[in-house]
């Protein structure tokens, strides 16, 4: 009997399906030269290339956090009378497995980053005497015998060791890049020089720098996090770094799935409206005017309240709390998709109106090609750049929106880790005295880097796929480096 049961959550399926679709798209790009050229332009822009690397790192965390399972309970409590195997009610993911120690390192209340003492004074009984002092943490710095003297040296030593590992990783990476370049650049020396002077076809130096920053930040964190709370703990003593890492998946799911959910409606309705014109167009325009005229938050709130009732009525749809929260988030993404397709639909309608008058469409009509086939063969491929640009642009907007929705009370389940939830808690913590700043700082750091990366990447994609946008890019004339193709 296996010692665990794989739990398939709705958003897991969606995320992996999306990942597979991305890989499929990648293969397609490789086979189509004209699309490949455009994507190569995205990659050759340093900012968007680095942003892409950061996004990939976030995506790796997300995918690690999207393989869920429940452990089998062993012994007397696990095996039922009929030989049936029972499973733990806790659903874990691969990420939880990697961070098992951080999950287990649960203190009783607040503690500052890297602290070995609690944040609040407490009564400590020591040999019959009770005194009021900061209690030692159960896990953070627990291995120190004389914390007052050893703490600084220990933290510094571990951080330096982590830094060294990070540095080593960067060096190895640089070497690997040089090795890869060596053939095309005439030898190792030349390759290294070109890499360091940014004279490579793709902006490899920038990528290396991005990875270096990541490695140098995460090296010490990894070295420290087994014995300390790198970002402190929250009110219930949970590790803040762990929460921030878990929140990445929530943000990613909301950003990616909601955008994907808008696509079918926007694409189908937009093309239909633009191609057939007449009453079809009127009707579809009426539909999206209807949707845009309702304040978005209110519409979403209304739908979420409905979902709430639906979930309360059908408790047999899920086995555990995690599954319930996940289903709720999945439905939230669908709601965001169903309420958010108007903008893209309007764009596609306009483009289709233009395309249908073009010669090749007219020629196809004259040959007697049916409307469905024309739309699929001639119109869909020509509006795909709009779809792509809008998709990447709305990704970051939705991540920001999640925080607001969670604050309003119609976002993800309160039991689920999310940036919105972290900010919500941080709000109360920021008014404490002395200040509890670390949850806020962690949420801020992770969220801003995710959104910023998404924004920069989106800009790169827009510049590459929309020739008009390229002229808007800020350039310093005379300093602009022109890469030779």
């Amino acid at each position, binding site marked *: 009997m296996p010692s665990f049961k794989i739990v398939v959550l709705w958003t897991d399926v969606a995320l992996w399906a999306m990942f597979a679709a991305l890989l499929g798209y990648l293969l397609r790009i490789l086979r189509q030269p004209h699309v490949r050229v455009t994507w190569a332009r995205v990659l050759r822009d340093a900012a968007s290339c680095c942003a892409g690397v950061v996004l990939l790192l976030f995506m790796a965390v997300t995918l690690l956090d999207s393989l869920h399972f429940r452990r089998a309970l062993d012994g007397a409590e696990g095996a039922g009378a009929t030989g049936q195997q029972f499973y733990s009610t806790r659903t874990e993911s691969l990420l939880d497995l990697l961070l098992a120690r951080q999950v287990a390192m649960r203190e009783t209340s607040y503690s500052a980053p890297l602290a070995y003492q609690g944040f609040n004074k407490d009564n400590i009984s020591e040999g019959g005497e009770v005194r009021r002092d900061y209690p030692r943490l159960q896990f953070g710095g627990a291995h120190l015998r004389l914390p007052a003297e050893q703490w600084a040296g220990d933290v510094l030593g571990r951080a330096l060791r982590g830094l060294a590992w990070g540095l080593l990783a960067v060096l190895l990476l640089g070497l690997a890049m040089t090795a890869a370049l060596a053939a095309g650049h005439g030898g190792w020396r030349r390759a290294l020089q070109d890499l360091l002077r940014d004279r490579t076809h793709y902006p490899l130096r920038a990528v290396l720098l991005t990875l270096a920053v990541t490695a140098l930040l995460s090296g010490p964190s990894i070295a420290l996090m087994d014995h300390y709370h790198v970002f402190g703990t929250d009110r219930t003593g949970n590790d803040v770094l762990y929460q921030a890492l878990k929140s990445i998946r929530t943000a990613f799911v909301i950003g990616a799935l909601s955008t994907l959910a808008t696509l079918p409606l926007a694409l189908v309705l937009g093309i239909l409206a633009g191609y057939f014109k007449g009453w079809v167009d009127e009707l579809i325009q*009426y539909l999206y*005017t*209807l949707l*845009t*005229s*309702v*304040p978005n*938050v*209110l*519409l979403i*709130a*209304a*739908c979420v*309240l*409905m979902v709430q*009732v*639906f979930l309360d*009525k059908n408790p047999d749809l899920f086995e555990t709390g995690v599954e319930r929260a996940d289903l709720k988030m999945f439905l939230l993404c669908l709601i965001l998709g169903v309420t958010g397709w108007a903008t893209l639909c309007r764009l596609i309608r306009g483009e289709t109106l233009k395309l249908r008058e073009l010669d090749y469409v007219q020629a196809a009509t004259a040959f007697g090609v049916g409307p469905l086939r024309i739309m699929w063969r001639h119109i869909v491929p020509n509006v795909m750049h709009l779809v792509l640009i809008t998709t990447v642009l709305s990704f*970051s907007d939705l991540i*920001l929106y999640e*925080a*607001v929705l969670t*604050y*309003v*009370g*119609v976002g993800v389940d309160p039991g689920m880790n999310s*940036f*919105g939830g972290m*900010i919500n808690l*941080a*709000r109360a913590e*920021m*008014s404490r005295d002395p*200040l509890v700043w670390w949850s*806020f700082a962690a949420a*801020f750091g992770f*969220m*801003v880097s995710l*959104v*910023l990366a998404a*924004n*920069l990447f989106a*800009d790169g994609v827009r510049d590459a796929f929309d020739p*008009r*946008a390229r*002229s*808007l890019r*800020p*350039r*310093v*004339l005379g300093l602009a480096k022109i890469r030779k193709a």
Partner: protein
Amino acid sequence: MIKYLLRRLGYGIAVLVGVNLLTFFLFFSVNTPDDMARLNIGGKRVTQEQIEKWKTERGYDKPLYYDAAQAGSQKFTHTILWERSISLMLLDFGRSDARQAVNIGHEVKVRMGVSLQLAVPLFVLQVIVSTAFALLLVFFRHTRIDFWGVVLCVLMLSISSLFYIIVGQYFFSRLLRLVPIGGYEPGLDAIKFLALPIVLSLLSRLGGEARLYRAMFLEEVGKDYVRTARAKGLSEPVVLFRHVLRNALIPIITSAGSYLPYVFLGSLVFESFFGIPGLGAFIIEAISGQDFAIVRTMVFLGAALYVASNALIDLAYTWVDPRVRLS
């Protein structure tokens, strides 16, 4: 012109009827009055009598769409759909579901005044500041100022407005003690309560807006009439202010106009964070209290404002660009 406005009005009413049907469907069909009663009464064990009493008190004891028991046109008018729709259209919002004492119409009137005090200065300042910042970037285009200005914009729009609020409240209210941390007082005292939310809201939107406006200006700067203006020997500021700015007004109006409904509806997040008793805070209360009557009223009001502001935007087009004819 008259014909255009009449058609516009007709379309607006069609949209409002649609919105009304949509919200009715969401709130009453998917989520029956019984569910609402159960949610509102709360508690685990709710008897059928309690539910019936709750429904009768609020007039939800009739059939939803069609009443076969009645005669003639009463079949349609003696329903929740008819009664609720007619009262909404006549701007009679009735009473809150959760707290019967709350008259929604009165509450909306009082709170809208408060929301306007926050939103009108914000709206005006936002347009002015974003335009000024964007013009500055365009004036210094192709220099480092433009480059780093855009970098700043991207950075600013990547930060959630909640972060601005929390940090702003911490610095200005707690550390520097310049303004109260939240609350509201009518009259002139309101300034000290509203100053911080206005500034923070401005900051949180500046990045996105300024970048958008910059793009609009740059689009105009590349056009022939600008080259002509320069060839005439006009100075760069004159070119920017008299020619580029005026021609870029149309997209600016479109973009700023999309905020108009929210000028009246207030800002959800800012009002509730700063304890300002405006419409935004009202909506949040209604959502967290699951008060469907209020949410439905606000949806209707929001749609009405959207329709109205779209008409206003169209009128503004004809004002800034005489070439635009409404037909």
